């Protein structure tokens, strides 16, 4: 036989090419949108992207957009911090202690499918119409995915990991901190990522119902005054902070799971 021919292996995508691929669809849509708006084939509520950009720029320059954005961020991040911390802590506990799991199981199953936004009126009656009621409803929404993922993360830890830790002389606290926690971390982070998206969704929904200030309020206020361009500015701002938050979590995940991620991609036996 002649020398084996080396198969043509496609060069791995460069960072730039990967980014370009991801941007292709949104960019094409944007161009199509702009062109149709210019040549008058779309309804009036589909404002041209260039107009939206100009309005957003103006709003940002005047500081008004930032006011709404920071009001939303306080609510979203406040609820995310409280709900996420409680969800992860309780979830890990429920994952390692059967009585804790039994304690939470019925109430979580019962209330999980209820859209958390429906309790906002009750929370407003109780906590007032300020930030507290909104933070409370975001807290409730974030709790579920973080709790459930942390619980299954801790429950799913390979028994052999725990056995070998006990074998090496680790006490219960060390088993938790040095085995359960890192082993459950990938799923804890998955729950945190879902929770983050929910935090933004519920914040905006709450602000659309009842609020002074915030991006959800901006959408409603713009609708009332028929300012469709403003509405889009609010939507753009929501998308940007949501995207930025998600990217931060993805980067954190990559750092935290340096070794564990290897196995998922690697071809080593």
């Amino acid at each position, binding site marked *: 036989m002649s020398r084996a021919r080396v198969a043509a292996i496609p060069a791995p995508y460069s960072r730039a090419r990967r980014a370009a691929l991801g941007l292709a669809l949104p960019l094409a849509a944007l161009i199509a949108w702009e062109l149709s708006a210019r040549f008058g084939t779309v309804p009036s509520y589909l404002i041209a992207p260039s107009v939206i950009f100009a309005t957003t720029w103006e709003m940002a320059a005047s500081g008004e957009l930032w006011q709404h954005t920071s009001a939303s961020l306080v609510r979203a991040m406040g609820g995310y911090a409280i709900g996420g911390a409680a969800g992860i802590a309780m979830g890990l506990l429920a994952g390692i202690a059967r009585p804790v799991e039994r304690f939470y199981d019925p109430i979580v199953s019962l209330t999980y499918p209820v859209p958390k936004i429906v309790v906002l009126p009750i929370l407003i009656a109780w906590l007032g119409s300020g930030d507290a009621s909104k933070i409370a409803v975001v807290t409730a929404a974030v709790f579920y995915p973080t709790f459930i993922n942390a619980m299954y993360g801790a429950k799913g830890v390979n028994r052999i990991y725990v*056995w070998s*830790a006990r074998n090496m002389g680790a006490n219960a606290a060390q088993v938790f901190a040095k085995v359960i926690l*890192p082993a459950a971390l990938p799923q804890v982070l998955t729950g945190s990522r879902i929770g983050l998206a929910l935090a933004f969704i519920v914040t905006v929904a709450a602000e659309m119902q009842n609020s002074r200030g915030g991006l959800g309020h901006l959408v409603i206020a713009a609708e009332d005054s028929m300012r469709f361009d403003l509405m889009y500015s609010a939507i753009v701002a929501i998308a940007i902070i949501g995207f930025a938050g998600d990217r931060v979590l993805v980067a954190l995940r990559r750092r935290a799971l*340096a070794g564990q991620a290897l196995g998922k991609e690697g071809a080593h036996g």
Partner: protein
Amino acid sequence: MALLDVRDLMKTFRRGARQVQAIDRFSLTVEEGEFVAIVGPSGCGKSTFLHILGGFEPHDGGTMLLNGAPVEGPGPDRGMLFQEFALYPWRSVIGNVGWALEVQGMPKAKRVAAAEKYLKLVGLSAFRDSYPAELSGGMKQRVALARVLAFEPRILLMDEPFGALDAQTRELMQEELNAIWQQTRNTVLFVTHDIDEAIYLADRVVVFTARPGRLKDEFEIELERPRRADVRKTAAYMAYRNRVWDSLRDEVLKAREEFR
């Protein structure tokens, strides 16, 4: 006095109304520095025995003395090597090997030096900063062995440690373990279903019966040490192999009946 003295060990698994007797009055003594292999048909309770000895499973009767003291719960006086390696994927190789010393509170410099020493013993110094996911199966088990050796247990408990490896890697690992044992002279209790592995490695081969596991036979393996790989081709080795297989064969057949 023997280092390990197990007497009349009993174990029954219960799930609901179903009961399965796994081990029935099993007794075994192991001397300091002795390498004992346990062979038996699959499902005979030999791994269960090791798990009980490791302190992971409770037992229902009998006594287990290690160095004169009763065995209770898991502890670093018994070093357990699992078939599944049980390396922590979030830790580098050196972080895994030093793990036991870390939880036992050894200062970092001392711990790293000890871990490096054992990593060198298993020939993986070059991989100290790799993660387990980057290693082959054989390398993972060598790291796991270094990790167990590093905390210097009184006895090594090996639960089919090469069972997850391919045939060629397994044979090389046996030779490697033999060479390492020649240097460290640990007391070892090695569970396997592979007769060749048992004879090649051990000073004594213990045969388990089909379930419920009981001691059936013991064979002293008087092959000269250090053993080279080609000892497997000698007449003396083949004679041992035939004797152990004759003893084991009936039990394997019995175990197979049960699963029909």
